[in-house]
């Protein structure tokens, strides 16, 4: 027992050292390769991001961070993924790391170990394909709901025929295909792989407030071969839910990085901006407001500290979902609060587009709403608490 304890302590220290090195190289890469001016310039472009930069991420091996080794990945887990997500978010890199590598990649991986899954993961790891998940069925959802209802798939001799509309598909404009949740005639649910080039697929993009892309995906009798059925029944449900929860936690990590960036800019401004002959950071009300933001940021960090760690361990799905909703609830609300107060601290200049704070504010707005906002996730957290038996939503 004591020996084991020492061993696990040693391996823990080793792991921590690995993560420290990864963090160092990730931050170095991100700040060098992705200065804020890059993020600024990509706003409102066709994809909203840069495929060449994605290739550089592939080069770094980061697209394979989560995928299993047999698919060319490194299976490093979420503690490592969080390091990359954090470094990229700090620089506002707009590439869809969480939508593709975490959400779509994990949905595929958790769906099964067949040849098509392996192929899709290899393509993701190798940069040949960027997949995203299409699961929302309301233009505006006010409650978290992962169950497909209006998008339906039907079996026919040539494979499956899928029809219906998905909403709020982030980073759809540059996606090579979609992991689509659909209901089956049996009433159970399923996940399909739908290449963007399939006949009947229409992607109607619109710009998000951070200059990124969010699309409505119309599927009009889209035909896919049998092997594109990635999973069905409880396996599909579990894969989607788990990948969703993992994406929630990683999005929360992004939001924490953005909180840090905005808070650091604010502290800097408070220390240096002079009004009435004094730095404005010497005014007690601004000091105390900054303290309240500090606490929100540290609560986010503390919560994510335990939640990211638990993500790498098998646990009860309900607890994982609770953890994930708790993470998003705090990270999103704290980020919005920090965004608003940072603009207030800065005054007029904080509201101008040319000042970089706005880039973080815009990303905050997008990420806090994506996959459900703080209000929705507080309710999901509470609903999961109240489920004592039976199926969960």
């Amino acid at each position: 027992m004591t020996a084991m304890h020492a061993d696990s302590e040693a391996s823990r220290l080793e792991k921590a050292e690995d993560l420290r090195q990864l963090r160092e190289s990730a931050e170095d890469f991100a700040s060098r390769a992705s200065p804020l001016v890059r993020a600024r310039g990509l706003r409102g472009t066709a994809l909203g991001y840069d495929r060449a930069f994605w290739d550089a991420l592939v080069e770094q091996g980061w697209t394979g961070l989560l995928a299993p080794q047999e698919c060319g990945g490194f299976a490093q887990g979420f503690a490592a993924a969080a390091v990359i997500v954090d470094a990229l978010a700090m620089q506002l890199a707009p590439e869809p790391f969480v939508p593709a590598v975490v959400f779509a990649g994990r949905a595929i991986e958790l769906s099964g170990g067949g040849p098509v899954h392996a192929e899709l993961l290899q393509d993701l790891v190798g940069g040949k394909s960027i997949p995203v998940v299409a699961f929302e069925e309301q233009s505006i959802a006010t409650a978290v709901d992962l169950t497909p209802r209006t998008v339906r798939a039907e079996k026919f001799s040539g494979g499956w025929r899928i029809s219906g509309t998905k909403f709020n598909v982030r980073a759809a404009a540059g996606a090579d295909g979609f992991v689509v949740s659909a209901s089956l005639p049996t009433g159970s649910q399923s996940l399909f792989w739908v290449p963007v080039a399939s006949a009947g697929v229409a992607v109607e993009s619109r710009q998000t407030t951070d200059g990124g892309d969010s699309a409505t995906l119309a599927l009009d009798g889209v035909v896919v071969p049998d092997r594109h059925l990635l999973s069905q029944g409880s396996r599909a449900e579990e894969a989607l839910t788990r990948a969703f929860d993992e994406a929630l936690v990683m999005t929360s990590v992004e939001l924490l990085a953005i909180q840090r960036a905005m808070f650091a800019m604010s502290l800097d401004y408070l220390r240096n901006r002079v009004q009435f002959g004094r730095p404005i950071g010497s005014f007690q009300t601004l000091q105390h407001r900054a303290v309240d933001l500090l606490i929100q940021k540290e609560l986010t960090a503390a919560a994510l500290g335990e939640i990211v760690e638990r993500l790498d361990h098998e646990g009860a799905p309900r607890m994982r979902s609770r953890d994930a909703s708790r993470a998003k609830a705090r990270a999103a609300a704290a980020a919005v609060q920090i965004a608003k107060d940072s603009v207030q601290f800065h005054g007029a200049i904080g509201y101008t587009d040319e000042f970089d704070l706005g880039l973080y504010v815009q990303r905050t707005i997008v990420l806090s709403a994506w996959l459900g906002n703080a209000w929705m996730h507080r309710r999901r957290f509470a609903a999961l608490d109240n489920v004592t038996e039976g199926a969960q939503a």
Partner: protein
Amino acid sequence: MSQDLNSLDDESFRRTVRAFFAEYYPEELRFPKQRLRWAEVKPWFMALSRKGWAAPGWPVQYGGMGLEPAKLIAFIEEQEKWGVARTPDMGLTMVGPLLIRHGTEAQRSQYLPRILAGEHIWAQGYSEPNAGSDLASLRTEAVEDGSDFIVNGQKTWATLAQDATHIFLLARTEKSAKKQEGISFLLVDATSPGISVRPIRNIAGGEDFCEIFFENVRVPQANLVGERNGGWKIAKELLTFERIFLGSPKQSQYALARVREACALLGLERDAGVQDRLTQLELDAADLNALYGRFVQQVKRGEALGPDVSMLKLWGTETFSRIADLLLDITGTAGGLPGDIPAPAGDSEEAINVLTSFYNARPATIYGGSSEIQRNILAGQVLSLPN
């Protein structure tokens, strides 16, 4: 004709006003979601101008409607009910009353008719990059040169100055004086050589505010309003007046209507969590309206507004901000999308706009004296708390 309006009973007056709106106000501009530019709203302003209704609050002798207070309020209420857009109104609400009170006869006859005719559009030149909350530390200077001032400096945060033909500004005319004491109030033709106006793109993607650069701009000394070096007092008077305007419950009431519409479209009308928050905000706006009414009464009685009017601006803008927060919450997954978002599950054409309110709430607590400045004013000048 304005005399006639004042003698009507309330309902007849409102009917008359509504009939005019119905005939002349462009249908497609009703309840606009964003502030309109001059080009968009000019035809409507010209209709008002031709009717003699451009300045409901100005005295008749200066070409206004000379409405008595109750009628003026009814006029405004009917505008709001009809969804009439705000026109660029710095000339009507700020410069006009200012010149009537502090201007020379020559200034009045030069400027007032042209404001009414829609020839002059005014912008405000107060804030500077290094004089935001600490407005009196402004550095734009006006140096005497013969019968002119030569103005150099930079103004910012000037609402819709890209549409302006004229600028009223604060400039330093005496450098050695205590900072509030060396400031003068000037009227400047925006087409003067040396002026350049640059719209500032904001984080919502709009361009409501501008920077204005002054490089050796000649301004006749005749354009000085009030005493030389006496501009701070005039500016403070305008700011106090502006605060009742900025503290109007209108913005909150409008945003509450948007929340109620969203609740209907999203099936949240019976959601106690949402409704509890909404009711709280409705009461916040209702009580703001009562407080606003007290200050309006004060204006009606011809009393000067005191520093306590800062309460209105504070509570009004912070209530508006909380309403915008609620709207952002209840529109869930659509929160990242600017513009109109189609309502869910709808054959309906209904749409919800989420982010306009959220973004508008940001400058609301900054300009016209930030919330922090308003609280300082109230703590010092109303509560007499020690320094």
